[in-house]
């Protein structure tokens, strides 16, 4: 886990739950993935399984007070074509048991989409698997740089 | 004025509890010269 100090952020979208314009708390980032290419990332929770397993874990974490940093549906990849899923979360340790409603909604919708997908025809050709791992990784790289999970040096 | 149009006719009176009940129609028509075959009062719940 990569620990971060104090952060000052503005909660822009107060759709459902108003927690004030400014919050201040300590948090750390966590990557949840089933993509073996991303195993090596410090603080990464790697699990063997399908994207549904990743989403299920995300849901549990959101109920434990985590918030999504990246969207659970990265890339325009239909669920029936997808073997790998990587999501960045932040844990906020605060006094109240806050569940981020927006994160929860996004996860629930993503779960719905994955649950209904016909995943019987996933292409398990080695080169396709490699493509899927690669694309999942590439979609997350800019996010990892942006949030300081990786520095540019570490990759290329 | 009665025109006697009903004279000799066979009447079936289909009354309704919330409308005009059978016995009311019977009372009205018993002297019309017609023969009342039967009269009922249906009721809808």
């Amino acid at each position, binding site marked *: 886990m990569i620990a971060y100090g104090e952060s000052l952020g503005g909660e*822009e*979208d107060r*759709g459902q739950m108003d927690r004030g314009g400014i919050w201040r708390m300590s948090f750390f980032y966590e990557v949840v993935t089933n993509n073996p290419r991303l195993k090596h990332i410090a603080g990464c929770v790697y699990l063997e399984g399908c994207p549904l397993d990743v989403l299920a874990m995300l849901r549990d974490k959101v109920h434990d007070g985590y918030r*999504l*940093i*990246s*969207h659970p*549906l*990265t*890339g*325009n*990849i*239909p669920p*029936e*074509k997808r073997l790998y899923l990587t999501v*960045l979360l932040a844990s906020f340790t605060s006094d109240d048991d806050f569940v981020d409603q*927006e*994160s929860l*909604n*996004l996860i629930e*919708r*993503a779960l*719905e*989409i994955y649950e*209904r997908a*016909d995943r019987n*025809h*996933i*292409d398990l*050709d080695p*080169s*396709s698997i490699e*493509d*899927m791992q*690669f*694309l999942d990784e*590439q*979609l*997350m*790289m*800019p*996010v990892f740089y*942006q*949030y300081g999970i990786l520095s540019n040096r570490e990759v290329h | 004025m009665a025109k006697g149009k009903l004279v000799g006719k066979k009447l079936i009176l289909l009354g309704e509890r919330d409308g005009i009940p059978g016995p009311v129609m019977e009372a009205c028509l018993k002297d019309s010269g017609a023969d009342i075959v039967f009269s009922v009062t249906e009721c809808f719940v």
Partner: protein
Amino acid sequence: MRLELHKVKIEDVQWGDATEVENNVLYINREEITDMLLEDDRFESVEVDLARPGERVRIVPVKDVIEPRCKIEGEGDVFPGFIGDVEGNVGRGKTLVLSGAAVVTCGKIVGFQEGIIDMSGPGADYTPFSKTNNVVLVFTPKEGIERHDYEAACRVAGLKVAHFLAVNAKGTSPDEVSLYELGEITKRPKELEGLPRVAYLYMLQSQGLLHDTYVYGVDAKRILPTLIHPNEVFDGAIVSGNCVSACDKNSTYVHQNNPVIEALYKRHGRDIDFVGCIITNENVTLEDKKRSSSYAVKLAKMLGVDGLIITEEGFGNPDTDLIMNCRKAERAGIKTVLITDEYAGRDGASQSLADAAPEANAVVSAGNANPTVQLPPMEKLIGFSESANVIAGGFSGSLKEDGSIEVELQAITGATNELGFTCFSAETR
């Protein structure tokens, strides 16, 4: 800003000794094109082929489609940042258009993301590019080349050829000239007074590799929402770098011919006061989504607009951007209409979008991408047919022995275009 599009109608494409346009026929010198492209040492080989409307031809896997255009008068040249310089702005003067022609790029970048174009048969009904005379470029990369570089090479090669074809037609007298003029926002002429102010919130796919869009050569994921003049779009200021699921990616061709801008121009001065376009991105993180949607709506407010057309590119993740944009605009008192496609499942019985809001009460549907379609075998195949098994919307076993394929509409380039480029739609039954 005033732009004239000088349209030369292209009714056929043929091989020729010189690359030129004569009597509405586009002639292609094959070697000239190949040689030009092989100057890029990232390619092992390039094949050039032609595909005309009605032919029994299938093109797969399609990456991008570009309309041949070049400047004949005005600053810079088309595709600024790639072909034209970024000194000055496009969108002014005169631009030559080879209307009815298209350059189609074909390459296996990451297997499952590219699309299919059938020039005839049932598949042709769904793609707008079965109606264009296509110059198809099929790329094979050098061994070991990194995929980002390969994608960039394909992207630039397509733009180069499109530009080159138009340049070689310079001097041809146009069959039609269309004029697009929109004045400064602060100096609205009298006749526009009292009309509702409308802007176009133009969402650009920007999630990463194969999901990128470029504005004046800048990767859109790095921009804050900004203003762009509609005429700049016609001059190729926005270039597609993505091969997201084929049905709802906005090909460069569709950007160049953006139908929303066309439609807004048509009603400008009559029913609305069209003030311009705000471009915004569709990034991976929620923080970026929040920032961009707030910023874009703020720009709309600064322009004082009453109404916004919002278009999406892609599905799933960007549904969140679409809904955020809509919700924030409506809450700021700006009326919105959205254009999106749907992923309602093969039977059409599932939820169409990955996000939703009651504020989104005016939506134009570009159709459900999930139903399947049977594509019969074709006489000729340009590209790599085995791709049918792996592209989005296809599935293992899609490709039958006789060469026919069964795919979801997702796999067909431009089938559910979210700029509202076609008549395709869906309704509840």
